[in-house]
């Protein structure tokens, strides 16, 4: 039975790797849990990967008609997410289009701060959200899409002096 499961896992992994080769996608890589002391804040870095051959607009594309990449997080009630920092885009020149656009490609990171209210109970909380992006390759564009994002926050009590 174990051998069957191992065999299935290998095949499933191969299928997943194969599946990554089609269409534009942005994968949110789940970060390690963030530890936050109740009543304090801590930084979190979210890592994303745009699949090869595609790019997405940065958060500040150099044209108002372009759709920016936007992270939306919906934390549990006693947590807050603030100070979301997007990386600057790389300027990509597409010869046939004859203009430079501000994009993310490959791996990129978005930083933020997680704040916990003082009254929050210790434990693990999951912050969920979405990353909205609009992808293109050098000749085609694809309608805007969203990819789910989540990370865990460990809340610990403040030490008493």
């Amino acid at each position: 039975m174990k051998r069957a499961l191992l065999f299935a896992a290998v095949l499933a992994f191969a299928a997943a790797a194969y599946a990554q080769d089609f269409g534009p996608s942005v994968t949110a890589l789940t970060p390690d849990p963030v530890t936050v002391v109740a009543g304090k804040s801590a930084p979190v870095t979210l890592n994303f990967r745009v699949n090869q051959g595609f790019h997405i607009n940065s958060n500040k594309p150099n044209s108002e008609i372009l759709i920016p990449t936007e992270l939306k997080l919906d934390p549990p009630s006693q947590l807050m997410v603030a100070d979301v920092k997007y990386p600057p885009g790389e300027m990509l020149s597409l010869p046939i289009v004859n203009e430079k656009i501000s994009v993310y490609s490959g791996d990129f990171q978005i930083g933020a701060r997680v704040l916990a209210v003082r009254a929050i109970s210790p434990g693990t909380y999951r912050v969920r959200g979405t990353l909205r992006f609009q992808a293109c390759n050098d000749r085609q564009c694809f309608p805007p899409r969203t990819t789910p994002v989540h990370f865990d926050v460990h809340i610990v009590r403040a030490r008493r002096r």
Partner: protein
Amino acid sequence: MKRNIVIFGITVVVVALLLFMNDITTKKADASPEAANTGIKTGQIAPGFELQDLNGKQVKLSDFRGKAVVLNFWATWCSPCKAEIPWFEDFQKQYGPQGLQVIGVAMDDSGHEKIAEFAKQMGMNYPVLFGKEAVGQEYGGVNFLPSTFYIDRQGRITDSVAGIIDRKDIESKLKVALGDQAPGIATPSSTPPNTVANSVVPNRSDSTAGASK
């Protein structure tokens, strides 16, 4: 024995998954520039539609009966689409007197006002219609933008391209639609259409008229 059945079952499921992935990958490859859109074949009658233009007027594909039509699906957020628009404007000026009609179908959700403003800024000198997903579906899904369909005077699709291509290749394809150039010799890389340019075929249908997004 039971274990073997489990292994066999899992293998069947995973192989089916791989075949499904392969199907999708093949469709992606088909979507590259110079390839026809999935589900739409050259030689077939262009699916009819009725869409609203920038002035609020309902426009049917059949309104352009007797003309060669370049049907361009685009969006305001699509840089390659934006790059093609001035070319289509030039082609409309140059080949309009010979019976060419460029039609732009805006497929974005940014609202009529924004699309109209964009069209004005770009100086689009051909009809711009507000697209509906149902019409996109009739044209193979239009999963990529720009997607352009070349339709001859009899309403048959002579070629279709997903993605931007060189201006000279667009010109060659529209000449085929106009009947000025024999199919298959447009460019070495073009998809040879199956249509016979001057064959007698039924009028374009407008079967999708009124379908909503």
